[in-house]
């Protein structure tokens, strides 16, 4: 697979170069797939929604003016696609309080916590949900997140702490 810089990659994608678009998908698939997986309430739809995101990227590339970073624009598309999907399938998302696990059912309690965590994340405001989804993907650290979302690192940290506090309150 060819190794283009971002501007060249975008230009080549605009001319209908399938190899270039394949390279773009390769570069961003982990980010998009992981974000969609975390943001969607129906995990079985991750594959379809992630494909929808790339289709929207393909449709939107001719209008992408390069004022923001490509990753910032992709974050917004992921967020919009998942928000639209959520609005189509409103679900019951109440989070029940955390029960302190006994020693014999720690593993089960962790699974239960994950389930409640998903529901609690679904209750967060959209911007907090996107931050949590992006930050806890392996490769996205504060600095990268700040750059991608075009906000200061301090703001990323503050918003993340608030989001986690809100999550904790929902779970506690």
């Amino acid at each position, binding site marked *: 697979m060819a190794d283009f810089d971002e501007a060249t990659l975008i230009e080549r994608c605009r001319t209908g170069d399938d190899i270039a678009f394949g390279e773009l998908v390769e570069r961003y698939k982990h980010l998009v*797939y992981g974000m969609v997986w975390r943001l969607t309430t129906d995990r079985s739809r991750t594959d379809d929604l992630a494909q929808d995101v*790339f289709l929207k990227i393909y*449709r939107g590339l001719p209008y992408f003016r390069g004022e923001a970073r490509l990753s910032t624009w992709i974050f917004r598309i992921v967020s919009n696609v998942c928000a639209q999907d959520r609005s189509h399938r409103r679900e019951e998302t109440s989070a029940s309080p955390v029960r302190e696990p006994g020693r014999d059912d720690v593993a089960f309690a962790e699974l239960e916590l*994950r389930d409640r965590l998903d529901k609690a994340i679904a209750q967060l405001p959209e911007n907090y949900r996107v931050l949590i989804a992006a930050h806890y993907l392996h490769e996205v650290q504060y600095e990268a997140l700040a750059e991608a979302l075009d906000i200061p690192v301090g703001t990323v940290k503050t918003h993340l702490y608030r989001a*986690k506090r809100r999550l*904790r309150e929902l779970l506690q």
Partner: protein
Amino acid sequence: MMCREVADLIEPIAAGELEPTPDVRGHFETCPSCALMLATARRLEAALVAHQPPPIPDRFVAAVLHRVRRERWRMERNVDLIFNVAIFVALLIVVGGVLALVDVSGVVSASSDAWVGLSAMGTQVARQIAPAINTYIAAAGLLLTALGMWWWAERIPYH
């Protein structure tokens, strides 16, 4: 130290990004409520870190490119359709304009003579094909079936 003073420190401490001072540590040791909040925050942090998406399916990139090609094909087909419709409308306008420019009564008279000629020719052709009409109907039926199958196949979504 008061509970509200440590409240904002719980998430950074749980994330391992802030080392608690002896005062803060002392508060957590003596305040069960704050200690529970810190324990919950740590479990939450661990769950968020551990909760990673599954591996991306091998066919993912190919599936995206396949959808992109279909999208492009659809767009090209729409452009073709619009172009053909535009050409047809333009032809109609040109024919209409030519008719309006020439003597309409003369055109009507000429077209009437042409119609009589065409009718006579049509009658003669009908007499010739009448014995084999069943063959023509069967052939037309086969042709229509083939066109229908083609139209149906074009509409099937493929993955």
